[in-house]
Protein backbone atom coordinates (compact mmCIF):
# COMPACT_ATOMS: atom_id res chain seq x y z
CA UNK A 1 0.00 0.00 0.00
CA UNK A 2 1.26 3.47 -0.88
CA UNK A 3 0.77 6.71 1.06
CA UNK A 4 -2.09 8.75 -0.53
CA UNK A 5 -0.11 11.95 0.20
CA UNK A 6 3.58 11.27 -0.71
CA UNK A 7 3.26 7.79 -2.33
CA UNK A 8 5.94 6.26 -0.10
CA UNK A 9 5.20 2.68 1.10
CA UNK A 10 3.02 2.33 4.22
CA UNK A 11 3.74 0.00 7.10
CA UNK A 12 0.93 -1.76 9.05
CA UNK A 13 1.06 -1.77 12.87
CA UNK A 14 -1.31 -3.38 15.36
CA UNK A 15 -1.96 -1.35 18.50
CA UNK A 16 -4.36 -2.86 21.05
CA UNK A 17 -6.22 -4.71 18.33
CA UNK A 18 -6.51 -1.64 16.04
CA UNK A 19 -4.76 -1.80 12.62
CA UNK A 20 -2.86 1.39 11.84
CA UNK A 21 -1.07 2.22 8.56
CA UNK A 22 1.87 4.62 8.84
CA UNK A 23 3.80 6.11 5.96
CA UNK A 24 7.52 5.35 5.99
CA UNK A 25 8.20 8.70 4.25
CA UNK A 26 6.05 11.49 5.77
CA UNK A 27 5.09 9.51 8.98
CA UNK A 28 1.41 10.23 8.23
CA UNK A 29 -1.10 7.82 9.78
CA UNK A 30 -4.05 6.34 7.89
CA UNK A 31 -7.04 4.99 9.80
CA UNK A 32 -9.68 2.71 8.31
CA UNK A 33 -13.40 3.29 8.93
CA UNK A 34 -14.20 3.08 12.69
CA UNK A 35 -10.58 2.90 13.82
CA UNK A 36 -10.54 6.45 15.28
CA UNK A 37 -13.61 5.54 17.37
CA UNK A 38 -11.86 2.34 18.52
CA UNK A 39 -8.81 4.31 19.64
CA UNK A 40 -10.97 6.88 21.48
CA UNK A 41 -12.81 4.07 23.27
CA UNK A 42 -9.51 2.43 24.30
CA UNK A 43 -8.23 5.77 25.56
CA UNK A 44 -11.24 6.38 27.82
CA UNK A 45 -11.05 2.80 29.18
CA UNK A 46 -7.41 3.32 30.03
CA UNK A 47 -8.23 6.54 31.90
CA UNK A 48 -10.92 4.78 33.94
CA UNK A 49 -8.57 1.96 34.88
CA UNK A 50 -5.78 4.26 35.97
CA UNK A 51 -5.13 3.79 39.70
CA UNK A 52 -6.45 6.49 42.04
CA UNK A 53 -3.80 8.83 43.44
CA UNK A 54 -2.03 7.18 46.37
CA UNK A 55 -3.41 8.11 49.83
CA UNK A 56 -1.33 10.38 52.01
CA UNK A 57 1.19 8.17 53.80
CA UNK A 58 -0.10 7.18 57.25
CA UNK A 59 2.55 7.28 59.94
CA UNK A 60 3.09 3.85 61.47
CA UNK A 61 3.51 4.29 65.21
CA UNK A 62 7.00 3.83 66.61
CA UNK A 63 7.64 0.22 67.68
CA UNK A 64 10.43 -1.58 69.55
CA UNK A 65 13.11 -3.63 67.80
CA UNK A 66 11.66 -6.88 69.20
CA UNK A 67 8.20 -6.08 67.86
CA UNK A 68 6.45 -8.17 65.23
CA UNK A 69 7.41 -7.20 61.69
CA UNK A 70 4.67 -4.90 60.40
CA UNK A 71 3.40 -4.65 56.86
CA UNK A 72 4.37 -1.29 55.42
CA UNK A 73 2.39 1.82 56.05
CA UNK A 74 -1.13 0.52 55.71
CA UNK A 75 -1.40 -0.56 59.26
CA UNK A 76 -4.42 -2.72 59.47
CA UNK A 77 -3.26 -6.08 58.10
CA UNK A 78 -0.66 -8.01 60.07
CA UNK A 79 -2.06 -10.64 62.39
CA UNK A 80 -4.03 -8.26 64.59
CA UNK A 81 -5.60 -11.04 66.48
CA UNK A 82 -9.20 -10.04 66.98
CA UNK A 83 -10.19 -13.29 65.36
CA UNK A 84 -8.16 -15.29 67.88
CA UNK A 85 -10.23 -16.23 70.90
CA UNK A 86 -7.19 -16.13 73.13
CA UNK A 87 -6.46 -12.49 72.27
CA UNK A 88 -9.98 -11.61 73.40
CA UNK A 89 -9.22 -13.43 76.64
CA UNK A 90 -5.81 -11.74 76.93
CA UNK A 91 -7.41 -8.29 76.73
CA UNK A 92 -9.45 -9.03 79.84
CA UNK A 93 -7.02 -10.85 82.11
CA UNK A 94 -3.83 -10.31 84.06
Amino acid at each position, binding site marked *: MQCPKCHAPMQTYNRSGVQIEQCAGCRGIFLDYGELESLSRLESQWLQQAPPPPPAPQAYPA*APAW*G*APHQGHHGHHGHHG*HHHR*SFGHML*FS*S
Partner: protein
Amino acid sequence: MTTTAPLLQRLAALSAPAVPGAAPEVLSDRPDGTVVRGGSTVAKAHAPDCDPHDLAARLRIAAHPLLHGTLLPPLPATAPDGFLTLTDDGRALTRWPYGTPVSPDDPDAAPWEDAARLLARLHAVDVTQLPGPVPPMRGPAKSARALARMRTALAAGTRPSPLTAAAGAVVRAGEFLPPWARGAAPPPRTDLLCHGDLHLGQLIRHPAPDGPWLLIDIDDLGLGDGAWDLARPAAWFATGLLAPDLWSRFLAAYRTTGGRAVRPEGDPWPDLEIPARALTVQTAALAVAKAAAASRALDGTETAVVDACARMTSL
Protein backbone atom coordinates in the same frame (compact mmCIF):
# COMPACT_ATOMS: atom_id res chain seq x y z
CA MET B 1 -15.16 -23.11 90.84
CA THR B 2 -12.28 -22.71 93.22
CA THR B 3 -14.19 -21.23 96.11
CA THR B 4 -15.82 -23.10 98.96
CA ALA B 5 -19.55 -22.82 99.58
CA PRO B 6 -19.15 -21.06 102.97
CA LEU B 7 -17.05 -18.29 101.38
CA LEU B 8 -19.61 -17.84 98.58
CA GLN B 9 -22.38 -17.56 101.19
CA ARG B 10 -20.35 -15.01 103.09
CA LEU B 11 -19.77 -12.97 99.91
CA ALA B 12 -23.44 -13.23 98.97
CA ALA B 13 -24.46 -11.92 102.40
CA LEU B 14 -21.91 -9.10 102.15
CA SER B 15 -23.00 -8.04 98.67
CA ALA B 16 -26.75 -7.99 99.28
CA PRO B 17 -27.63 -7.95 102.97
CA ALA B 18 -30.85 -6.03 102.28
CA VAL B 19 -32.28 -8.45 99.73
CA PRO B 20 -32.74 -11.81 101.45
CA GLY B 21 -33.61 -14.62 99.06
CA ALA B 22 -32.21 -12.87 95.96
CA ALA B 23 -29.91 -15.25 94.12
CA PRO B 24 -26.31 -13.97 94.16
CA GLU B 25 -24.42 -14.05 90.87
CA VAL B 26 -20.77 -15.19 90.76
CA LEU B 27 -19.04 -12.70 88.42
CA SER B 28 -15.56 -14.16 88.77
CA ASP B 29 -14.07 -17.09 90.65
CA ARG B 30 -10.34 -17.54 90.33
CA PRO B 31 -7.51 -18.42 92.70
CA ASP B 32 -6.56 -14.74 92.99
CA GLY B 33 -10.06 -13.47 93.73
CA THR B 34 -13.77 -14.23 93.81
CA VAL B 35 -16.44 -11.64 93.04
CA VAL B 36 -20.15 -12.10 93.81
CA ARG B 37 -22.89 -9.67 92.77
CA GLY B 38 -26.11 -9.04 94.65
CA GLY B 39 -28.16 -6.33 92.94
CA SER B 40 -26.26 -3.03 92.87
CA THR B 41 -23.47 -4.25 95.14
CA VAL B 42 -20.59 -6.69 94.68
CA ALA B 43 -18.43 -8.40 97.29
CA LYS B 44 -14.89 -9.53 96.63
CA ALA B 45 -12.74 -12.13 98.36
CA HIS B 46 -9.15 -11.10 97.69
CA ALA B 47 -6.27 -13.51 97.03
CA PRO B 48 -5.44 -15.72 100.03
CA ASP B 49 -1.90 -14.28 100.20
CA CYS B 50 -3.12 -10.67 100.04
CA ASP B 51 -1.56 -8.49 102.79
CA PRO B 52 -4.51 -6.93 104.68
CA HIS B 53 -2.46 -3.90 105.77
CA ASP B 54 -1.42 -3.04 102.22
CA LEU B 55 -4.98 -3.69 101.00
CA ALA B 56 -6.37 -1.37 103.69
CA ALA B 57 -3.95 1.36 102.53
CA ARG B 58 -5.05 0.84 98.92
CA LEU B 59 -8.73 1.00 99.95
CA ARG B 60 -8.15 4.32 101.73
CA ILE B 61 -6.57 5.69 98.55
CA ALA B 62 -9.48 4.48 96.38
CA ALA B 63 -11.90 6.18 98.80
CA HIS B 64 -9.89 9.45 98.87
CA PRO B 65 -11.45 12.53 97.19
CA LEU B 66 -8.32 12.95 94.98
CA LEU B 67 -9.28 9.71 93.21
CA HIS B 68 -12.91 10.71 92.72
CA GLY B 69 -13.80 10.14 89.07
CA THR B 70 -10.73 7.95 88.49
CA LEU B 71 -11.00 4.93 90.80
CA LEU B 72 -14.26 3.29 91.88
CA PRO B 73 -14.54 3.99 95.63
CA PRO B 74 -15.20 1.03 97.96
CA LEU B 75 -18.33 0.69 100.10
CA PRO B 76 -18.03 0.32 103.86
CA ALA B 77 -17.76 -3.34 104.86
CA THR B 78 -17.65 -3.03 108.64
CA ALA B 79 -17.89 0.60 109.70
CA PRO B 80 -18.19 3.87 107.71
CA ASP B 81 -14.42 3.98 107.15
CA GLY B 82 -13.81 0.26 107.55
CA PHE B 83 -13.59 -0.99 103.99
CA LEU B 84 -12.22 -4.42 104.86
CA THR B 85 -13.39 -7.44 106.79
CA LEU B 86 -11.61 -10.75 107.32
CA THR B 87 -12.97 -14.29 107.30
CA ASP B 88 -12.13 -16.64 110.16
CA ASP B 89 -9.24 -18.03 108.13
CA GLY B 90 -7.90 -14.56 107.32
CA ARG B 91 -9.27 -13.99 103.80
CA ALA B 92 -9.82 -10.26 103.07
CA LEU B 93 -13.32 -9.26 101.89
CA THR B 94 -14.44 -5.91 100.44
CA ARG B 95 -17.68 -4.35 99.10
CA TRP B 96 -18.10 -2.24 95.96
CA PRO B 97 -20.87 -0.67 93.88
CA TYR B 98 -21.75 -2.72 90.80
CA GLY B 99 -20.66 -1.20 87.45
CA THR B 100 -21.14 -2.26 83.83
CA PRO B 101 -18.01 -3.91 82.40
CA VAL B 102 -16.52 -3.58 78.89
CA SER B 103 -18.27 -5.83 76.39
CA PRO B 104 -15.90 -8.71 75.62
CA ASP B 105 -17.33 -9.14 72.11
CA ASP B 106 -15.82 -6.12 70.37
CA PRO B 107 -12.31 -5.03 71.43
CA ASP B 108 -12.31 -2.38 68.68
CA ALA B 109 -15.23 -0.69 70.44
CA ALA B 110 -13.56 -0.87 73.86
CA PRO B 111 -13.01 2.46 75.61
CA TRP B 112 -9.29 2.67 74.84
CA GLU B 113 -9.20 6.47 75.03
CA ASP B 114 -11.19 6.55 78.27
CA ALA B 115 -8.75 4.05 79.76
CA ALA B 116 -5.82 6.25 78.71
CA ARG B 117 -7.40 9.40 80.15
CA LEU B 118 -8.13 7.63 83.46
CA LEU B 119 -4.49 6.50 83.65
CA ALA B 120 -3.26 10.03 82.92
CA ARG B 121 -5.46 11.31 85.75
CA LEU B 122 -4.26 8.56 88.10
CA HIS B 123 -0.63 9.40 87.28
CA ALA B 124 -1.30 13.10 87.92
CA VAL B 125 -2.34 12.53 91.56
CA ASP B 126 -0.11 14.35 94.06
CA VAL B 127 1.08 11.34 96.05
CA THR B 128 2.16 13.49 99.00
CA GLN B 129 -1.53 14.27 99.60
CA LEU B 130 -2.54 10.59 99.88
CA PRO B 131 -3.13 8.75 103.14
CA GLY B 132 0.10 6.84 103.57
CA PRO B 133 2.18 4.92 103.62
CA VAL B 134 1.39 4.21 99.96
CA PRO B 135 2.44 0.63 99.10
CA PRO B 136 4.58 -0.17 96.06
CA MET B 137 2.91 -0.98 92.74
CA ARG B 138 2.93 -4.76 92.37
CA GLY B 139 3.38 -5.12 88.60
CA PRO B 140 7.03 -6.28 88.61
CA ALA B 141 6.31 -8.79 91.39
CA LYS B 142 3.56 -10.30 89.26
CA SER B 143 5.91 -10.71 86.29
CA ALA B 144 8.23 -12.73 88.52
CA ARG B 145 5.27 -14.75 89.77
CA ALA B 146 4.18 -15.58 86.20
CA LEU B 147 7.66 -16.92 85.39
CA ALA B 148 7.58 -19.05 88.54
CA ARG B 149 4.14 -20.39 87.61
CA MET B 150 5.41 -21.39 84.16
CA ARG B 151 8.38 -23.24 85.68
CA THR B 152 6.07 -25.11 88.06
CA ALA B 153 3.62 -26.05 85.30
CA LEU B 154 6.38 -27.44 83.09
CA ALA B 155 8.09 -29.25 85.98
CA ALA B 156 4.79 -31.03 86.71
CA GLY B 157 4.99 -32.79 83.34
CA THR B 158 6.56 -36.25 83.41
CA ARG B 159 8.20 -36.09 79.97
CA PRO B 160 9.71 -33.34 77.81
CA SER B 161 6.94 -31.10 76.55
CA PRO B 162 6.66 -29.57 73.07
CA LEU B 163 6.38 -26.34 75.05
CA THR B 164 9.97 -26.63 76.33
CA ALA B 165 11.42 -24.51 73.50
CA ALA B 166 8.78 -21.81 74.03
CA ALA B 167 9.42 -21.82 77.78
CA GLY B 168 13.16 -21.46 77.14
CA ALA B 169 12.59 -18.36 75.02
CA VAL B 170 10.38 -16.85 77.74
CA VAL B 171 12.90 -17.62 80.51
CA ARG B 172 15.77 -16.06 78.51
CA ALA B 173 13.69 -12.93 77.82
CA GLY B 174 12.93 -12.75 81.56
CA GLU B 175 16.60 -13.02 82.48
CA PHE B 176 17.33 -10.26 79.96
CA LEU B 177 15.13 -7.84 81.94
CA PRO B 178 16.72 -5.54 84.51
CA PRO B 179 16.20 -6.79 88.10
CA TRP B 180 13.63 -4.10 88.98
CA ALA B 181 11.30 -5.32 86.21
CA ARG B 182 11.33 -8.78 87.85
CA GLY B 183 10.61 -7.39 91.30
CA ALA B 184 14.20 -8.12 92.38
CA ALA B 185 15.24 -4.49 92.95
CA PRO B 186 13.51 -1.15 93.61
CA PRO B 187 12.13 0.50 90.45
CA PRO B 188 13.97 3.57 89.09
CA ARG B 189 10.78 5.65 89.34
CA THR B 190 8.45 5.65 92.34
CA ASP B 191 6.94 9.08 91.86
CA LEU B 192 3.61 8.10 90.30
CA LEU B 193 0.50 6.40 91.65
CA CYS B 194 0.03 3.41 89.32
CA HIS B 195 -2.81 0.95 88.82
CA GLY B 196 -0.40 -1.94 88.33
CA ASP B 197 -2.60 -4.35 86.35
CA LEU B 198 -4.38 -2.51 83.56
CA HIS B 199 -6.46 -4.52 81.11
CA LEU B 200 -9.97 -4.15 79.69
CA GLY B 201 -11.46 -6.08 82.62
CA GLN B 202 -10.36 -3.21 84.90
CA LEU B 203 -12.86 -0.67 83.53
CA ILE B 204 -16.51 -0.29 84.46
CA ARG B 205 -19.24 2.28 83.96
CA HIS B 206 -20.65 3.55 87.23
CA PRO B 207 -23.46 4.19 87.87
CA ALA B 208 -24.52 1.26 85.66
CA PRO B 209 -25.34 1.04 82.85
CA ASP B 210 -24.02 4.25 81.25
CA GLY B 211 -22.21 6.33 83.88
CA PRO B 212 -18.63 7.48 83.29
CA TRP B 213 -15.82 4.92 83.02
CA LEU B 214 -13.80 4.24 86.17
CA LEU B 215 -10.83 2.03 87.01
CA ILE B 216 -11.41 -0.90 89.36
CA ASP B 217 -9.30 -3.57 91.10
CA ILE B 218 -6.82 -1.89 93.41
CA ASP B 219 -4.94 -5.03 94.47
CA ASP B 220 -1.74 -3.93 92.67
CA LEU B 221 -2.15 -0.14 93.13
CA GLY B 222 0.85 1.78 94.41
CA LEU B 223 3.94 3.84 93.73
CA GLY B 224 6.08 2.93 90.75
CA ASP B 225 6.86 3.56 87.10
CA GLY B 226 3.64 4.75 85.46
CA ALA B 227 4.78 3.35 82.10
CA TRP B 228 3.82 -0.04 83.54
CA ASP B 229 0.17 0.95 83.17
CA LEU B 230 0.63 1.74 79.45
CA ALA B 231 2.81 -1.29 78.84
CA ARG B 232 0.13 -3.91 78.28
CA PRO B 233 -1.49 -2.10 75.32
CA ALA B 234 2.06 -1.21 74.17
CA ALA B 235 3.05 -4.90 74.32
CA TRP B 236 -0.12 -5.96 72.46
CA PHE B 237 0.70 -3.44 69.74
CA ALA B 238 4.37 -4.45 69.58
CA THR B 239 3.52 -8.14 69.26
CA GLY B 240 1.18 -7.38 66.37
CA LEU B 241 -2.03 -8.23 68.24
CA LEU B 242 -3.45 -4.73 68.72
CA ALA B 243 -4.14 -2.66 65.60
CA PRO B 244 -1.69 0.28 65.26
CA ASP B 245 -4.50 2.84 65.10
CA LEU B 246 -5.95 1.65 68.45
CA TRP B 247 -2.52 1.94 70.04
CA SER B 248 -2.01 5.40 68.49
CA ARG B 249 -5.38 6.58 69.79
CA PHE B 250 -4.66 5.21 73.29
CA LEU B 251 -1.25 6.89 73.44
CA ALA B 252 -2.55 10.19 72.01
CA ALA B 253 -5.38 10.31 74.57
CA TYR B 254 -2.88 9.68 77.38
CA ARG B 255 -0.59 12.46 76.19
CA THR B 256 -3.42 14.92 75.52
CA THR B 257 -4.61 14.44 79.10
CA GLY B 258 -1.14 15.32 80.40
CA GLY B 259 -0.01 11.79 81.24
CA ARG B 260 3.39 11.87 82.92
CA ALA B 261 4.68 8.32 82.41
CA VAL B 262 6.04 8.89 78.89
CA ARG B 263 7.67 11.91 77.22
CA PRO B 264 4.99 14.29 75.91
CA GLU B 265 5.89 13.81 72.23
CA GLY B 266 8.10 11.82 69.89
CA ASP B 267 9.00 8.15 70.20
CA PRO B 268 7.62 6.89 73.56
CA TRP B 269 9.54 3.59 73.44
CA PRO B 270 12.55 4.67 75.50
CA ASP B 271 10.05 5.00 78.40
CA LEU B 272 7.94 1.93 77.52
CA GLU B 273 10.64 -0.54 76.52
CA ILE B 274 11.33 -2.27 79.85
CA PRO B 275 7.73 -2.47 81.16
CA ALA B 276 6.43 -3.61 77.76
CA ARG B 277 9.06 -6.34 77.60
CA ALA B 278 8.21 -7.39 81.16
CA LEU B 279 4.49 -7.61 80.38
CA THR B 280 5.18 -9.53 77.16
CA VAL B 281 7.26 -11.99 79.20
CA GLN B 282 4.49 -12.19 81.82
CA THR B 283 1.79 -12.81 79.20
CA ALA B 284 3.92 -15.42 77.42
CA ALA B 285 4.76 -17.19 80.70
CA LEU B 286 1.09 -17.45 81.68
CA ALA B 287 0.20 -18.67 78.17
CA VAL B 288 2.83 -21.44 78.32
CA ALA B 289 1.74 -22.36 81.87
CA LYS B 290 -1.91 -22.67 80.81
CA ALA B 291 -1.05 -24.65 77.69
CA ALA B 292 1.14 -27.00 79.76
CA ALA B 293 -1.61 -27.51 82.33
CA ALA B 294 -4.09 -28.34 79.55
CA SER B 295 -1.56 -30.47 77.58
CA ARG B 296 -2.21 -28.47 74.44
CA ALA B 297 -0.13 -26.50 71.92
CA LEU B 298 0.09 -22.69 71.86
CA ASP B 299 -2.46 -20.96 69.62
CA GLY B 300 -1.64 -18.16 67.16
CA THR B 301 -1.93 -15.32 69.66
CA GLU B 302 0.16 -17.11 72.27
CA THR B 303 2.78 -18.00 69.68
CA ALA B 304 3.03 -14.33 68.63
CA VAL B 305 3.82 -13.35 72.23
CA VAL B 306 6.41 -16.13 72.67
CA ASP B 307 8.00 -15.15 69.32
CA ALA B 308 8.37 -11.58 70.61
CA CYS B 309 10.19 -12.97 73.68
CA ALA B 310 12.56 -14.86 71.37
CA ARG B 311 13.32 -11.68 69.42
CA MET B 312 14.19 -9.81 72.63
CA THR B 313 17.30 -11.92 73.17
CA SER B 314 18.30 -12.47 69.55
CA LEU B 315 18.92 -8.86 68.60
